[in-house]
């Protein structure tokens, strides 16, 4: 291959890479994601993943630190440590949710959340519903400030397409898809290709069934059909990254219905992944664009948050 051909190929690859990983997305989508995900972190640590504080009371004999905690030399949870961590986590999440200090508060929140979750998982029970949210917290600070109001200082205006915002959004989308696709891979790795023909749902229902599960469990064939549906949908999930418009909306609705189903049947909510599905939605439309009434000559435009959206 001649030098110039190789050069052209390299340029083409770089372009495709840029299109795939850093599409220009209105910065407003990141502003809305921050306004949803950081408050969700508050909700999560207070209500959903709330065992790190009780873990502070558990004797170290039962503490089995993850590689991440051993690598970073994080100490074993104690009553004081977990309470300080909780305060740092809540404060940083609230500041970041308000769109203030997006890089600093966002970075502190991401680090504190990793400490929090690795604490939650260091007693031999590891959940897999937080990976997309962890990725979101890691990438959101890289976007920097987004301006959602006219005349409120620095930052990328919400309506301006930004590749930095696009990279962050894309990372969250890919992390959500990984959660599904890799779950299918894990089923084949640990359960074999006949996982879907097995009795995993019967197993789950007999351990944490609800009223509805009794009726469903009476039909083992239906359970096997559901297991196949899950496996096939998870393997096909990477297609979501290529969809647009109605097809994308339909795919996202399918996953929402799936999570609602597992919640109704098994009380497994997977909310940390569910909120990250928002990265697929045109959230920037919540930040309404309008002409500035005054003070912005030359046809410049200002934006303000729509009711309920924005900051």
């Amino acid at each position, binding site marked *: 291959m001649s030098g110039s051909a190789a050069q052209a190929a390299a340029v083409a690859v770089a372009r495709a890479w840029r299109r795939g*990983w850093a599409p220009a997305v209105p910065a407003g989508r990141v502003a809305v994601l921050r306004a949803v995900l950081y408050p969700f972190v508050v909700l999560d640590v207070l209500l959903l993943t709330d065992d790190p504080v009780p873990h502070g009371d558990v004797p170290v004999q039962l503490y089995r630190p993850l590689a991440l905690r051993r690598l970073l030399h994080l100490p074993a949870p104690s009553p004081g440590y977990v309470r300080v961590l909780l305060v740092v986590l809540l404060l940083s999440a609230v500041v970041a949710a308000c769109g203030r200090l997006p890089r600093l508060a966002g970075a502190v929140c991401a680090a504190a959340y990793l400490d929090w979750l690795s604490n939650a998982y260091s007693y031999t029970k590891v*959940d897999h519903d937080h990976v997309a949210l962890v990725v979101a917290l890691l990438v959101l600070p890289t976007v920097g400030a987004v301006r959602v109001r006219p005349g409120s200082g620095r930052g990328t205006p919400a309506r301006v397409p930004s590749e930095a915002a696009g990279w962050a959004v894309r990372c969250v989308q890919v992390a959500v898809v990984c959660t599904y696709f890799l779950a299918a891979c894990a*089923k084949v790795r640990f359960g074999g290709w006949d996982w879907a023909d097995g009795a995993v749902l019967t*197993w789950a229902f007999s351990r944490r069934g609800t009223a509805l599960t009794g009726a469903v469990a009476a039909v083992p064939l239906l359970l096997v059909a559901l297991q196949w549906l899950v496996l096939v949908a998870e393997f096909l999930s990477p297609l979501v990254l290529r969809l647009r418009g109605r097809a994308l909306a339909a795919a996202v609705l399918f996953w929402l219905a799936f999570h609602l189903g597992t919640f109704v049947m098994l009380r497994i909510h997977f909310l940390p992944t569910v909120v990250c599905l928002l990265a697929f939605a045109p959230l920037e439309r919540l930040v309404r664009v309008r002409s500035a009434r005054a003070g912005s000559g030359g046809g410049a435009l200002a934006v303000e948050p729509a009711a309920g959206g924005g900051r």
Partner: protein
Amino acid sequence: MHTPGEPAVAPAAPRRLGAAALLWRGAAALVFLLLLTAGTLRGSDDGWPFAPMSQYAFAVDLDEEVRSPYVQGTGTDGALRRVPLTAGGVGVERAEVEGQLARFVRDPALLEALAAAHARRHPARVRFAQLELRERVSDLSGGRVVRVRDDLLASWTVPDPRHPLGCCGGSAP
């Protein structure tokens, strides 16, 4: 849907990333993706966040058994109670006891840690003097539960029930 909706105004020029900014972002995304994939294909829970996405990933035979562990204990008042395997009860949940079931079986003295955690979280409640780790076993046939049994896995008598693992001082109930 990473293209914006049709704006009501003339589109602004996109803010592009420089070569270096794009390069480190691309490299970071790629490394994370590789670690995540390797975690599921080869790794274990220990590597979280690069751990296998293995919830409900194991095979359950339609004719095998489903095991569900629980712990019960005799209090210093002589009454038999369920030890609450919840974050609120003893700081660890049932799944976290289940995850180290083999350790409890090998070393039943670990059960005293549950008594200590319970005493720390509920100083006013009756303490446990003797604990038993048991399993409720449901036998499946053709995917249906046909029989339920109960197995004893480990038991431990706390040497000083008022101060499990020397915990909590004071005048315990």
